[in-house]
């Protein structure tokens, strides 16, 4: 088939390129909606407005001075097409009239920290991060910052916090939403 005439060659070139252009066009026209579809609502920020959701941790007087206490809270989450509840743990330490309220999520990569009374430290078993009772990170911790405190208030004798999630790894606390 090496003896194609010039006309044939042009025709073949046109049809060949035409096929490729059509194929690429259809692929491109599909790629955009598919990409958007796959990303879905992942990048949408929740619009709860500015109203803070105060969650009760129980009576403020029941906490023992200086001793970390775990409190389970239930938060409302939106999981795709479902509105549901999820449990989280908050570490509470009473210091005189003040409170320290930590989320139990390790600021390193998000495992949960537990209080180890024998060593007087919060410990994250994932990559060995230890934190003081005050939340500061101990030397050698994998985490770049101490435990993340949550905003709290005492209202009607009840200790309340605003639950938030924070970005991993950073040396300072930044809200993840």
């Amino acid at each position: 088939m090496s003896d194609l005439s010039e006309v044939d060659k042009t025709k073949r070139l046109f049809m060949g390129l035409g096929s490729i252009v059509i194929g690429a066009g259809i692929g491109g026209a599909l790629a955009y909606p598919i990409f958007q579809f796959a990303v879905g609502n992942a990048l949408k920020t929740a619009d709860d407005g500015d109203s803070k959701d105060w969650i009760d941790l129980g009576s403020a007087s029941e906490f023992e001075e200086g001793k970390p206490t775990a409190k389970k809270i239930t938060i409302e989450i939106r999981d795709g097409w479902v509105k549901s509840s999820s449990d989280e743990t908050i570490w509470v330490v009473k210091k005189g009239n003040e409170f320290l309220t930590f989320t139990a999520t390790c600021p390193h990569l998000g495992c949960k920290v537990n209080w180890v009374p024998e060593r007087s430290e919060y410990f994250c078993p994932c990559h060995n991060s230890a934190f003081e009772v005050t939340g500061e990170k101990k030397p050698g911790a994998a985490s770049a910052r101490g435990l993340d405190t949550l905003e709290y208030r005492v209202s009607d004798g009840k200790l309340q916090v605003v639950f938030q999630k924070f970005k991993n790894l950073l040396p300072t606390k930044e809200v993840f939403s």
Partner: protein
Amino acid sequence: MASPAIPQFNGTLGKIYDWVDERAGISEIMHELLDEPIPGGTKYAYAFGSALLFIFALQSITGVFLAMYYVPSAEDAHKSVEYIMKEVPFGAFMRGMHHYGSSAMVIMVVLHILQIVIWGAYKQKRELLWLVGAGLFQLVLAFSLSGYLLPWDMKAYYGTVVTVGIASEVPIFGDMIKRIIIGGTEMGTITISRFFMVHVFLLPALTAGGIAAHLYLFRKAQPAGPFNMTEQEAMFKVEPFWPGQVFKDAVFSLVVFAILAYLSFATLAPLEPKADPSQTQYVARPEWYFLFLFQLLKYFPGSTAIIGSLIIPGIVMAIITFLPFLDRNPERHPLKRPFVMLGTLALLVAIGALHLLAKQDDNQNFAAQLKAQEEEGARFLKEPFEPKDTSQKSLAVAPPPEAFVKNCAVCHGENGAGGPAGPKLVGIAKKPGRSKEEIAGLIENPSAYDASKMPPMPQVSAAERAAIAEWIHTLK
């Protein structure tokens, strides 16, 4: 290998190409795939097969991505489809492509078969090619049937009830088959899960294998060429597959794609409210391309039903499947094959007539209900999305107001779940004409709100009416 289909590169690009080619044999494959000689030249009439392949690819791609959000359970299937339609960016488009794509698949498979039949292209040692094709045709129909259930809306539910009912007509094993299909005696999550597995794993795998076999056998048998030329004439006008036929296939596929994309943007793929087995007014209709089969059922009452549902369609399908064995005459010109041509025409006319009769019957007897269903579906699609609420807050339903306990609970049940004399109130807030104000009005004057069976309640004060309506709206 001197092939006009294989690109020639110079310089570095050429070296890279040669390096890869020596190891991967690209040139050989390209030559094999693209230089296929087409006797009698390229034609748009040959584009249906490629278009089918194209639509199958579209269905696979959109299907894979739809599965990112779809959950096959009685609890979540409908909500997840609603979520896709209303909340996910381009969700309505993706589902539209998949929905209209299924129709396109059926249309295209029929056109493809008709072309082969008219051209007599199933003859001359092409029996296996045709058999695999017939199997693929049945797989396409199985795709539609199994996909129909997945959104778990009214249409899906009743469509499947009928389909499964037909399966149960099989003598002796009918009930067993039915139980195995639905996974017990109750249609629900197990049923959806089975249809889902069949629709997204089993059928695609079988189809992919079938397509591979079909293409291989096609290449082995070679294109049949025009029916009105001798083999010598056809060989004289031979054209390679690339680029002439590829271009025609591409143009045709582009037209198909443009139509599907337009439909998906212009018209939402239907989705009705969630399946409700207690709904007695619902008129169930299959997808349009099965309407003729549905009409056929009407002519075989009682114990003869199996004739219309399984025997006649089974015989027709068997004739189609074994056509190359039944029609052994080597003649390919359609005008010289009156038997097959008239048979095909008669089948098409019968299908068309049954379809029109079904439409006519519906227009005469069910027009109002069908229209109401359509409007209900459209209304449902326009409703803003409400997430399913399983949070602990929602579980704590407030106790009914005292006025409800005193005046309403006797008939409607203590928690509004319905009783012997009154319908259930749970979920009623979602129905049209049942806003809080309207419910309060209904309690005052039931007959003005289409509830003439309910006695008027003059003893209930306006404040109590409002409290009851408020509470009823919390029942989900």
